[in-house]
């Protein structure tokens, strides 16, 4: 933690108050690591958002020969059917990004709802939810998504739901563990003693204290979402040809990999590069948020450690 200097206590208190999501991101952005992550994410975001507007050709127009080499017409050459690789890369990102975001939000929401319910209800409800979670966890995320999509058809919204469903059990586990810890704090008991309804105890006392694990979990899941959705597209699920899509592009153009005439590596390399940058960026940013929140927790452990009576206090119920 090199951010705090002489401003010390006052600034620390201010920052800690901004423990909420936005404050965490702002703190993360003050570190070099956080900035690197943010810049990487921003680069890919810009490509996805303004890409469709600056693409030189229609992504489905045939402008050059199959696997045509880079030229003034097609800066990154042609793909397997002779379409412009650059245009397809510029247009093929936003939908991937959007569906990954949607899948993540859905998955984190469902998972944390399940995790919170399990943690706070305890007993049989906890057992039931967590056993279901265990069953879902037994399938690898990609396989689970594949299963759903192959049963229900390759619709994009189905892909999103499938990926969300693949995330939910893992999120549920993490959130349940954190919530169990918070639920035993005295301030939660204090609200319970007022006769507050369980749902409000969870939403007003427990949930706000889970901001940082939730954020870290969301970031992590976003990375996985991108990879799974791109992977599904590569396998032919999700967005259907001829619309452009980074995952599908890798598959379509992999025959063009190689050296010599009749090959164009850009068809694979460009989407791979962008997916890699996006994943690394999101991951770096998430990691920084995790570190920052850990740092805040440590420094806001304002319980004076040297205080002798705490041995008694932490000794559990007398």
């Amino acid at each position, binding site marked *: 933690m090199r951010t705090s200097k002489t401003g010390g206590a006052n600034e620390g208190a201010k920052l800690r*108050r901004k423990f909420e999501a936005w404050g965490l991101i702002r703190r993360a952005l003050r570190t070099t690591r956080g900035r690197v992550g943010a810049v990487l994410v921003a680069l890919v975001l810009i490509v996805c958002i303004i890409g469709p507007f600056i693409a030189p050709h229609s992504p489905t127009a045939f402008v050059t020969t199959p696997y045509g080499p880079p030229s003034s017409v097609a800066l990154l050459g042609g793909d397997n059917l002779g379409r412009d690789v650059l245009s397809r890369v510029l247009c093929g990102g936003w939908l991937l990004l959007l569906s990954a975001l949607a899948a993540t939000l859905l998955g984190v929401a469902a998972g944390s709802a399940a995790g919170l319910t399990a943690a706070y209800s305890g007993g049989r409800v906890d057992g039931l939810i967590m056993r279901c979670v265990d069953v879902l966890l037994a399938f690898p995320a990609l396989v689970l998504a594949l299963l759903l999509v192959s049963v229900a058809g390759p619709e994009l919204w189905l892909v999103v739901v499938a990926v969300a469903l693949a995330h939910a059990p893992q999120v549920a586990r993490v959130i349940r563990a954190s919530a169990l810890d918070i639920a035993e704090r005295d301030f939660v008991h204090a609200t319970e003693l007022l006769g507050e309804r369980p749902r409000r105890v969870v939403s007003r006392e427990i949930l706000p204290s889970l901001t940082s694990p939730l954020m870290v979990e969301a970031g992590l899941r976003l990375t996985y979402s991108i990879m799974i959705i791109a992977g599904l597209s590569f396998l032919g699920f999700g967005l259907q040809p001829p619309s452009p899509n980074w995952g599908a592009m890798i598959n379509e153009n992999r025959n063009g990999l190689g050296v010599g005439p009749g090959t164009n590596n850009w068809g694979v390399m460009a989407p791979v590069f962008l997916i890699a940058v996006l994943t690394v960026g999101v991951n770096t940013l998430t990691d920084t948020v995790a570190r920052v929140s850990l740092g805040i927790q440590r420094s806001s452990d*304002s*319980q004076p450690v040297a*205080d002798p009576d705490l041995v008694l206090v932490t000794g559990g*119920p*007398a």
Partner: protein
Amino acid sequence: MTSMPRLVVSDLTIAMDRSNVDVVDQVSFTVDAGEVLGLVGESGSGKTTVGLAMLGYARRGLRFLAGSVALDGQDIMQLRQGEVRKLRGARIAYVPQDPTSALDPSMHVGKQVAEVLKIHSGRADRTQIRQRMEEVLREVALDPTQELLRSYPHQLSGGQQQRIGLAMAFACRPSLIVLDEPTTGLDVTTQRHVLETVRSLCGQYGVAAVYVSHDLAVVGDLVDKVAVMYAGRIVEYGRTSIVFGQPAHPYTRGLLAAVPTLDRAAVLSGIEGQPPRPGNRPNGCAFSNRCSRADEECVTSDPTVREVNQRQLRCFHPIESGTLSRSVLTPNRLDDMSGTPHLEVRDLNASYGPKPVLHEVAFSVSRGSCLALVGESGSGKTTLARCVVGLHRRWEGDIQLDGQALPAGYRSRSDVLRRQVQFIFQNPYTALNPRRTIGATIAYPLQRFGGLTRAEQSERVESVLRDVALPTSYLSKYPDQLSGGERQRVAIARGLVVEPEVLVCDEITSALDASVQAVIVEMLRRLQADRGLTLVFVTHNLALVRSIAQDVVVMAHGRVVESGAVYKVLDDPQMPYTKQLLADVPRLKGQRWDADSADVHQTTAGAERP
């Protein structure tokens, strides 16, 4: 004192690594062989930092800036890491605060004691080590049976664990031993035994000891010399009988006046305000902002150390009036004490899972009076309190409020009952939601129970905040901006805002310094009188009982041992357990008692002004 003192610390200054701001400033003292020096002060005063410096150790983020720590003439500050390491455990030993976390949980305790000997006595063979180990275990009053040696720390009691810690410290016959609050968390009886062991071993083997503690009663009982620390500096230093007998520094006096005592019902007067955070010492006398004697000079210039009445003192305006005098509370019985009890517990049996923790507990509290539940850790007093408020549901028996039976869990109680009985938690650091402002925290119960307009609510919140002596500017603050004592006040305010009839306080001052505890207890007593509250005060501190309660229930192993009026039980205990408990409580000596003058209603006036 013909020869040189064993330990000479001079001008020790320890600073933060990054900013070079000192957290310990020009600390000097000496300790002779066989002598025990006490380092006392509130949390954050730097006493542990100084204690660790005796081992040539500075905590992460701190470093030695100046001064020397000379053990038998050898300056530890000048030694290289490797050389210091050889000294530690051999010539300088350390007994940490919490034996549970200081001992290796995966190693037999016998092996741990032997390890110290093995490391430091290079060529000794196994039988020699074994002999010395058994010897030192006997010295700390442990029987070195095979069973003990082969047990893991968690199989031993807290007292036994701390004795193992002491055995490890004394194993190599050190010249200097640093004890960092070694008896915190131990029951008073165990504490007394451990302290006696420390004292006799130090005397017997001529070990110089530095005893770091916040507990003035323990220190007053044990040590020969005492150094009172405030904000990283020693403010008063001298022989214990002199410093504690005739405290000259207003801070020392404040600390002493805050210590509850078993012998009389003293008016506790705490020290208002809070000490500066480490490294944030203000200009001038660091204590000036909390001192009633401070004037212009104290704020602008720094008092230097000078010799006053056989002690070293850092103060411009020392108190010269001699012995600390304290006001006595007259045993105060309120008028409507007779009649039906307000809260009554009968035949209460409670369990945690299959394990029974309370057996046929019964007591009653009259309206407007305070009942203290006293017991050592594990006596079931906290469980009892939790049964009353409904946090613990697994009990059978009868708890009645105003003749009306209370259902077991808080969920099955009506809003009226929930409102009438309020609970204050032990640990102020977890009792407040960190994401909610103080204002929102206190207003929450009002919103929950409804029936008030927004304006009425905020009026109520502000008035209760005044009652707990916090400024209204705190409404928009968050818990982490408050000290422990302030947080506990907020927790009390949250309980009082719904105007309950019964307040159950679970060890609410055990996480706080004595000086803060005194302020809280006095405040609670005032509020009780003003509002006619019925109070159930759970505590492990017998001395505190005198100052707050009219009736007391002594508990042990989940049963009521003895109960009755405080003056009867404490002055004339009937049960052997109570007698032993009372005998083991460390006492402060040398205080003068004012005539029975103060009563409950005028206790907030400064009690110790000469």
